[in-house]
């Protein structure tokens, strides 16, 4: 297994699955289930599946709570041979990325290998999650 630090964005040739849903808490369960099923299909082990599910929930809950009215939450999943990128973004009222000195940030960094954020200055906030698959490599 490679020990190199993860690239800061997905490989260009990775397969991409995009899910868009209204940025409202009622729709998050669908995304959680989708994430978990996708991860299990990619043969992440069950600990990693549960981690990804919670990480996506955490990242999206934060975005949704600050999302502007009637905006869409956009989630793109990029499939790499031994890893998964989940990039979630929404238009928010304050346009600032999640603070790093919080419990929420601690949760994200404990659940996935890399967490990164982005803000375009125009209200769009992006959270990038990267998780490697230990899977059967052990």
């Amino acid at each position: 297994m490679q020990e190199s630090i993860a690239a800061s964005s997905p490989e260009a040739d990775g397969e991409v699955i995009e899910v868009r849903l209204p940025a409202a808490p009622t729709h998050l369960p669908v995304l959680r289930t989708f994430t978990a099923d996708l991860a299990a299909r990619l043969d992440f082990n069950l600990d990693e599946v549960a981690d990804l599910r919670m990480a996506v929930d955490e990242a999206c809950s934060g975005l949704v709570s600050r999302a502007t009215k009637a905006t869409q939450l956009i989630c793109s999943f990029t499939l790499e041979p031994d890893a998964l990128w989940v990039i979630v973004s929404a238009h928010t009222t304050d346009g600032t990325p999640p603070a790093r000195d919080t419990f929420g940030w601690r949760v994200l960094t404990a659940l996935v290998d890399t967490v990164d954020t982005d803000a375009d200055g125009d209200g769009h906030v992006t959270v990038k999650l990267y998780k490697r698959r230990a899977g059967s490599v052990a």
Partner: protein
Amino acid sequence: MSRHEDNAEAQALFAEFAALPEDSPRRPAMRDQLVTMHLPLARHLARRFNNRGEPLEDLTQVAMVGLINSVDRFDPARGVEFLSYAVPTIVGEVKRHFRDHGWAVRVPRRLKELHLSLNSAVAELSQRNGRAPTATELASYLNISREEVLEGLEAANAYRSSSLEDPVRGDESLPTLANTLGDDDKELEGVEFRESLQPLLKQIAPRERRIVILRFFGNMTQSQLAEQLGISQMHVSRLLAQTLAQLREKLMADE
């Protein structure tokens, strides 16, 4: 035949059964006979738990398992009647069924069974490999298709876990919990937002609190937590997700 005669017959049969050597060819038939003559008891006890959300058919089956266990474990030499041994054993089995098999939504029986086999396969494979298994590994271990495994994992989410709202009434499996909480707090040393987090953590049940601290600050995996707490990985997963949602709500309310 009067109940008294029934009992006398059963007692005599049990004495004879107990006296047979382990490998006696007569044992299976006598065991069947003993089970069969007490079937009405098992059915009766199962009916007492009817209309509580589990099909009577399932309850009856569980009661039968309790009955068979009673027949196998009953020792007439101890001088108690079979009934006073069997009734609590059967009722215990049915109650355990309610505790272990509570589902939040109606799930087909096949999926419930799949869930049970998945749960034990996860435990077995985690033990063997030192980490949680993948869907492919589960499929090959259980000799079913990967699609079935995925379906079963999805169904697991409909499973009702012991609710967070449940009071932590003396969880026998964690006798040393109070003693170890102090150690868990060490994990929080050096955490910048400890001041704001600690009062929140104090509001959640000790077991959930411990899971949160060890997972997010102690860097333990869910499988490791499951092993340490003596519960399944899926149970840890549910507890963690629920607690996290609860904490998030409280944190947002504070903002």
